[in-house]
């Protein structure tokens, strides 16, 4: 039920922010649409803790800020490589332990890895991620577990 | 009953008979009876029509002209499906219906005698062909004539290929190809031309083409018609006729001595008289080329006939040459020769059918088809061969057969118009006719039979009766030619 409410609220926000027309007709249509979408998605069984992270939602902005910083940093390093020394790359594949407890957490972690240039998640298993990196240095950055911790904090 | 209704009955009744025959096909006896009864009935109907027509002719001399005509439908403005009685058609109708009766008798005998297959189909198509013949006879315009002309072609095709053998099919294809090809390829355009020029296709006494076309165009048009009416078998459109001889003899007899070929020459005659008009056509300066062609056909066909040993083939070529007499008569363009042509239609009909009957009779009785096998057959089949002789006389044009009269008129016409070429042709061909008929008669009566041949007598009674009737008619017409003569004269008068 919590998830449904959360979803409804999210969808309502989406509608209102997109619409820009707040006449009675359109609003009631919006309400109907939301109801319909909720109905369909419940039937689809996609409304659950995985898709509606009610619990952790308030911590997400903070995490994003942190992640943005990481992204900017790694971007700079990759850009340098592209422009100045494409030959200096030294790709590698490695498995890294993860400490996330839920699939959602693992997904956030994996996507964050992918989102930062220079590292790409190849596969996710229960307690490991397989990562392809552009340079071995970035591998060590991952292995030190900073990001892992951040995600874990988000999750808890 | 008014003549108009009779006219329609005459055309539609055979179709009904055809349907009846189809239905009763499982019962041969009943079927044959229906054939006979309906043939008789039709003949009577035509006689009645003739009487009505005769009466109207008498009236005509008085005051009111009350033509006997029926219009079924107007397909295109100026293009009717309609019928109208006139002398030439009456003559043709009389011949056709009379001979159907005779042929029915003969045909029943022949088909039974030879145990042919598909007899129902055979007897069913016969009335259709006759209906078509009557339609042609009574047609009041070119279109109607053309329609029935095609109906006749199509309905006789299965008769020609009756045997169904590969050879028969091949001949059938030639038959159909030549007839349909010439009719659609030449005849129809000619009709269209006429229609385009005059806006009508009606048969009108004196013709409808006066002052409409230049002499050259007239000649071309005439050529289109003469050649387009393939059933008239003017060379080079004659190939179908010998080919059609694969048909059973009654078919050859009725259709290729009477209905089909006569429909052809009748059409030519009718077109010359009622579409061109004799006077108009005499303007056609290049017509003599056509006449040469026809004359050539007469002589050439006779010569070819000489060379054929197969009796029916020889008769077929004889037919080709005789038909061209009629066309020639039409092309001489004198009233007398037209009378001759009309008479010759009748004369040849009776004469040739007799000959074919005789040929069929011989085949039924002895399975002989070649002339060289006929030695001494006159002794075994005296009736048949007597009839054959009379027919042959008529073909040659000797008294006491009716052929004499018609040839006489043709000659007279040619003489009047001073067309010496035509006279020459007639004389030469008469000699040739004699040359190919006399040896047969000679063989039949004066040679002795080859040894070891099977003994046989006359063919069955139906056949004998039929051929006797036609032989008698040939002589009777010589003695009392007044009916055909009167009719023929009334054409010439017009």
């Amino acid at each position: 039920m919590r998830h449904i409410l959360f979803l409804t609220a999210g969808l309502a926000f989406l509608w209102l922010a997109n619409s820009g027309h707040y006449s009675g007709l359109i609003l009631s249509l919006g309400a109907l649409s939301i109801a319909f979408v909720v109905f369909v998605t419940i039937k689809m069984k996609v409304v659950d803790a995985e898709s509606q992270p009610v619990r952790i939602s308030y911590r997400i902005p903070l995490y994003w800020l942190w992640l943005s910083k990481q992204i900017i940093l790694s971007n700079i390093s990759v850009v340098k490589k592209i422009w100045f020394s494409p030959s200096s790359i030294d790709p590698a594949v490695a498995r890294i332990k993860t400490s996330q407890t839920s699939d959602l957490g693992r997904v956030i972690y994996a996507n964050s890895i992918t989102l930062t240039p220079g590292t790409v998640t190849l596969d996710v298993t229960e307690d490991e991620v397989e990562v392809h990196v552009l340079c071995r240095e970035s591998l060590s950055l991952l292995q030190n577990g900073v990001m892992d911790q951040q995600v874990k904090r988000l999750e808890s | 009953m008014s003549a108009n209704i009779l006219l329609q009955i005459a055309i539609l009744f055979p179709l009904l008979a055809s349907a009846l025959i189809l239905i009763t096909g499982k019962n041969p006896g009943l079927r044959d009876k229906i054939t006979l009864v309906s043939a008789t009935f039709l003949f009577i109907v035509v006689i009645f029509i003739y009487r009505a027509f005769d009466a109207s002719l008498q009236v005509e001399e008085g005051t009111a002209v009350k033509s006997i005509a029926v219009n079924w439908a107007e397909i295109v403005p100026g293009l009717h499906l309609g019928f109208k009685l006139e002398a030439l058609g009456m003559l043709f109708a009389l011949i056709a219906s009379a001979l159907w009766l005779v042929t029915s008798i003969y045909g029943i005998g022949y088909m039974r005698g030879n145990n042919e297959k598909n007899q129902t189909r055979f007897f069913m198509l016969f009335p259709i062909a006759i209906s078509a013949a009557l339609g042609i006879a009574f047609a009041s315009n070119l279109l109607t004539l053309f329609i029935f002309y095609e109906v006749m072609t199509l309905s006789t095709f299965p008769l020609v290929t009756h045997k169904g053998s590969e050879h028969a099919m091949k001949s059938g294809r030639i038959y159909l190809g030549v007839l349909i090809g010439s009719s659609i390829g030449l005849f129809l355009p000619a009709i269209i031309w006429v229609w385009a020029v005059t806006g009508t296709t009606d048969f009108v006494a004196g013709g409808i083409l006066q002052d409409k076309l230049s002499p050259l165009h007239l000649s071309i048009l005439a050529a289109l018609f003469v050649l387009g009416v393939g059933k008239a078998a003017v060379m080079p459109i004659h190939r179908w006729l010998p080919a059609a001889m694969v048909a059973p003899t009654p078919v050859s007899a009725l259709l290729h001595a009477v209905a089909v070929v006569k429909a052809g020459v009748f059409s030519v005659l009718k077109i010359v008289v009622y579409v061109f008009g004799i006077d108009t056509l005499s303007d056609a300066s290049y017509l003599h080329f056509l006449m040469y062609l026809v004359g050539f056909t007469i002589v050439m066909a006779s010569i070819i006939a000489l060379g054929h040993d197969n009796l029916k083939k020889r008769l077929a070529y004889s037919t080709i040459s005789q038909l061209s007499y009629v066309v020639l008569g039409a092309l001489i363009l004198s009233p007398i020769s037209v009378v001759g042509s009309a008479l010759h239609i009748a004369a040849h009909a009776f004469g040739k059918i007799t000959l074919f009957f005789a040929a069929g009779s011989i085949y039924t009785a002895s399975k002989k088809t070649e002339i060289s096998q006929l030695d001494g057959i006159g002794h075994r089949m005296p009736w048949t061969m007597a009839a054959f002789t009379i027919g042959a006389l008529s073909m040659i044009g000797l008294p006491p057969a009716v052929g004499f009269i018609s040839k006489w008129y043709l000659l007279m016409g040619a003489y009047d118009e001073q067309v010496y070429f035509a006279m020459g042709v007639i004389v030469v061909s008469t000699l040739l006719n004699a040359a190919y008929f006399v040896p047969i008669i000679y063989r039949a009566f004066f040679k002795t039979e080859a040894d070891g041949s099977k003994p046989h007598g006359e063919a069955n009674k139906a056949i004998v009766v039929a051929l006797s009737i036609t032989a008698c008619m040939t002589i009777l017409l010589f003695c009392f030619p007044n009916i055909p003569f009167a009719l023929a004269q009334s054409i010439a008068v017009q």
Partner: protein
Amino acid sequence: MNFMLDAISWFLLASGCFLCITGGLGLFRFPDFFTRMHAASITDSLGSGLIIVGLAFQTPGDWLVVAKLGFILVFIFFTSPTASHALAKAALHAGQKPWQKQT
């Protein structure tokens, strides 16, 4: 104030575009599929982010537009790593071998 906003926005746009071109270039300069993927992710992540934020600065006060830009950004942030991840996984499964530096 407006000038400031404009300047910031231009700066962001310019750097975003630069990153995009860089990504495209990387697509060329890197030797194999997996390494190229890193180059592509430059565009996806920071490149698009900068451009969108830059655009957002162009429309002071029109929150509707900003919201829409935000949706686009969030959407890209969700989908692009997912897509690249799926792609990489598929490639790996299909037998593509990561390029290794010759030593």
